[in-house]
């Protein structure tokens, strides 16, 4: 084993390689590592934030859903109320109409009856007179016995 100038050569190359490593290897690589570390930290933060936002959104969706359900319930209730109201009104109207028609019909009937009565009365008077003539064998002056005949007719 001979000690010789190789030792100096090795010292010089060592210094050069350390210098090159300091200049071209270490700083860019550690910078890249630090940068990636920062990016990962930011990514994790963003993920946390997104999770929190999702939770918030879910909560607000839940709230909106509850509110709309309540609104729908109110609307249905109102609609039911309104429907029964309409049905009641329709019933009332129909009842009134029916009553009116019935009343009109009754009035008509009464009128017809009266008219028939009148007609009958008139005929009765004639018949009475004719009957009486036959019974009495004489003509009866309708005019003279008008009062009597009318009285008779009215009693019928």
């Amino acid at each position, binding site marked *: 084993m001979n000690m010789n100038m190789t030792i100096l*050569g090795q*010292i010089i190359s060592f*210094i050069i390689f*350390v210098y090159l490593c300091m200049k*071209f*290897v270490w700083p860019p690589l550690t910078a*890249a590592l630090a940068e990636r570390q920062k990016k990962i930290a930011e990514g994790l933060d963003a993920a946390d934030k997104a999770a929190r936002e999702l939770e918030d959104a879910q909560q607000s969706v839940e709230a909106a859903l509850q509110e709309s359900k309540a609104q729908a319930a109110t609307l249905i209730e109102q609609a039911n109320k309104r429907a029964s109201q309409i049905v009641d009104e329709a019933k009332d109207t129909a009842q009134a109409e029916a009553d009116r028609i019935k009343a009109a019909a009754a009035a008509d009937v009464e009128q017809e009856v009266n008219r028939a009565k009148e007609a009958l009365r008139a005929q009765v008077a004639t018949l009475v007179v004719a009957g009486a003539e036959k019974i009495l064998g004489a003509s009866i002056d309708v005019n003279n016995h008008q009062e009597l005949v009318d009285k008779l007719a009215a009693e019928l």
Partner: protein
Amino acid sequence: MASGMSSADYIQHHLTNLTYGNHPVNGWSFAESGQQAAEMGFMAINVDSMAWSVGLGIFFILLFSRVAKNATTGVPSGTQNFIEMIIEFVDDNVKSVFHHKNAIIAPMALTIFVWVFLMNLMDLIPVDWIPSIAAASGIHFMKIVPSTDLNVTLGMSIAVFVLIIFYSIQQKGIMGFLAELSLQPLGKWALPFNLFLELVGLIAKPISLALRLFGNMYAGEMIFILIALLPFWAQWLLSVPWALFHILIITLQAFIFMVLTIVYLAMAHDHH
């Protein structure tokens, strides 16, 4: 094992660096043997160690800077993921040990870890492959694991040692550093004893750093070479388990070199 060679020659050959230097007789030339390399003294360079070491360093810088340049902050690709895993591993280690502000420590720890790992990894290439190719192209010696060369490990640990001294003085002042060396553990009346103890401790840091890595890799390489001496049909029985075990060793040694560097530099910054 090449024919016409004794086992001792084979091992010796595998443990000899390709050395270029100033030989007292031949002048500037490649050493033809370990003997000649030793005669060259300090004015020589282990060409194979330097080439593999620098080549692997360039591979490390190119691979990592390429990924760094195209680094995305989105979902990383496979390569980027792997590189980032290493970066985070090194960064965690630095942050758990080193609590001061210093822009050099982490990149240096990364360089040490990956570079030493790559140099150790050459140990897993079968010992004869590349030396055979080199021999075929006329290169007589080729040791492809730079961390089995004490020059290489010592070179790195000396650089670390210089940084230890530099930061000790920068953080504590020259007087503070000297006080730390001489006034503990026993107080000012035992100053020479303290100084001796602390200096030994200080010098031991780079020496142990270099020798630990060198020793582990050299021993590992030696065992691979010894296994390569077996008949070819029996080699896998030992080389496969040892290679699997060695994967652990090369990673561990790279890791230890890195962590101890961080610890030593953290100690240099701490005030006692």
